[in-house]
């Protein structure tokens, strides 16, 4: 069971970190006001 847990935790960690690396950064808003709090 522990081996399964360790593999599971490793896969999820790698998955989320890769997703961070692969997700393109968001464009900045055109106007300054768009970046204000809603």
């Amino acid at each position: 069971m522990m081996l399964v847990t360790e593999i599971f935790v490793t896969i999820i960690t790698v998955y989320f970190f890769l997703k961070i690396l692969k997700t393109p950064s968001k464009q900045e808003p055109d106007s300054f006001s768009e970046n204000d709090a809603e």
Partner: protein
Amino acid sequence: MALKDSSGWGSRVGLVLAMAGNAVGLGNFLRFPVQAIENGGGAFIIPYLVCFLLMGIPLLFVEWSIGRFGGSKGHHSTPFIFDSMDKRALWKYVGVFGIFTNLAVAAYYCYLESWTLSYVWHSIADSFGGKTQPEVANFFGNYVSLGTIEPIIFWLICLLLNTWILSKGLSGGVEKAAKIGMPLLLIFGAFLAFKAITLRAGENGALYDGTLGLNFLWTPDYSTIWDAKVWLAAAGQIFFTLSIGMGSIQCYSSFVKRKDDIALNAMSAGWMNGFVEIVLGSAIIIPIAVGYLGIDGMKELLSEGGGLGLGFKTLPYLFEQWGSLLGVIAGVAWFGLLFFAGITSSLAMGMPVMDFLKDKFNWKEKNAAWAFGVAVFLLGLPTVLFFNNGVFDEYDYWAGTVSLVILALFEIILFAWIFGMKDGWNEINQGADIKVPVIFKYIIKYVTPILLGWVFINSIPDIVSTINHDKSKENIAFYENANEMKKKSEEQQKLLLKKSDFKPEYLSSTTSIEKLDTNKLISFSTYLLIKKERELSKIMTDNNYRISKIQSENKNMLFKNISRGLLLILWIGIAYLVYLASRKIKLKKS
């Protein structure tokens, strides 16, 4: 991260590594495996993962959201972040815990961090080479008893290093440190885990395979699964390991822009901490200790000094068995990884304090960093000078345990019930790069607050017992009860007689215990038991010594009361600064 901002994060990877570094601490390597052993072995992972899903992840979402929301209003510390969510004065003062905890924890944590730095140095200098196991253990005892000035020097180096990195700002200091520290921590951890698992009986003096320790750690005892104590231990571990309820996550995420993701970032940092804890944390200390000492020997050592004792008193000796070069490399890797785990956490403790001073009192980055350094020095001095009087543990209990639960309990009520789950859910999903399962909306609103309330209610008897100094009073009552001492002595002697390397004459004070050890006549666990029995015998026969032991317990209670007073003054002082800052804001508005 779309834009590089001088007062914000330089990159998204930097933010996630810094957040993971904040969470990954010494507890991942020293506390988690011990908790698992004491709470059902492999079966512990079930309550652990359930608590991670029902309490850890929801609180990560909540703290990241609260931080980003407060940051968009120009606040970076919890008193005014909470104030931006609800204008009632209560929340501002609940937020005081988010500064108090960081300062008070940093005060003792930096000292702990300095031990790791010192042990890196001693590993390089081969100070443990040729020493017996009790000598290595005594080295630690002498160290914290301030036998030399060295602990103070390393502590000051550590404080200066933290202050210097913090003075470089978020992207120029903290983020760079995380980008260096976290990869090195993972490399060191992977190296040690590989060495521990591949440890073979008969090689380099090992008595058993390292995998025996791993099997022992992870063999499930399912009978413990319905024990409330085990669930409480799992909830507690999740709490401490993720650095929730401290105010540092909110501070870091307050520099994330409104349109940027927090959901994926929170999951990535949280699981990275889980990986370090479950995969690496469990694969180092226990397999190595069991490989050399056997399961019973390791258990005896754990009962003596827990994970901290095992990590500092035993591992340096065991690394020496791998040969001089590999011993040095392993020592540097072990204490190096603990150092990086420590510093990435202590840096996170500095930011909320600094940002409070910068935001509300217009302090410059450098001045705020120095103010933090000086405050940690002054607050930490009692933990260094009076470590053996329980000051360190007292700080850890009130600031590093009780305060976290109080802040987290209040903040989830604020987020889910006052700010409202509708707005709260929108906050979590704003700019999210993953789809957060809708079930978390209900978990955050109902399950997590109940779970936190349960943790808090269950902690109350322990809090009352700590306030009353029950442990010290029990010790005094023991020293005053000759029958109890005799009974205990008989029990210890029975245990000793079961040991094959024990001879009754070893209990006689005319035989030097150090000589027995140096000549390898006794094992380390027998050494510890003989030492304990000799001590008890001295208490029973020497009345002056018995009185000095009682006086020492009374002295400890006094020091603990003074520590509590100091922490209370600190909390009130921060609350007063929060009051001054809010009055300043009101005057500005009018």
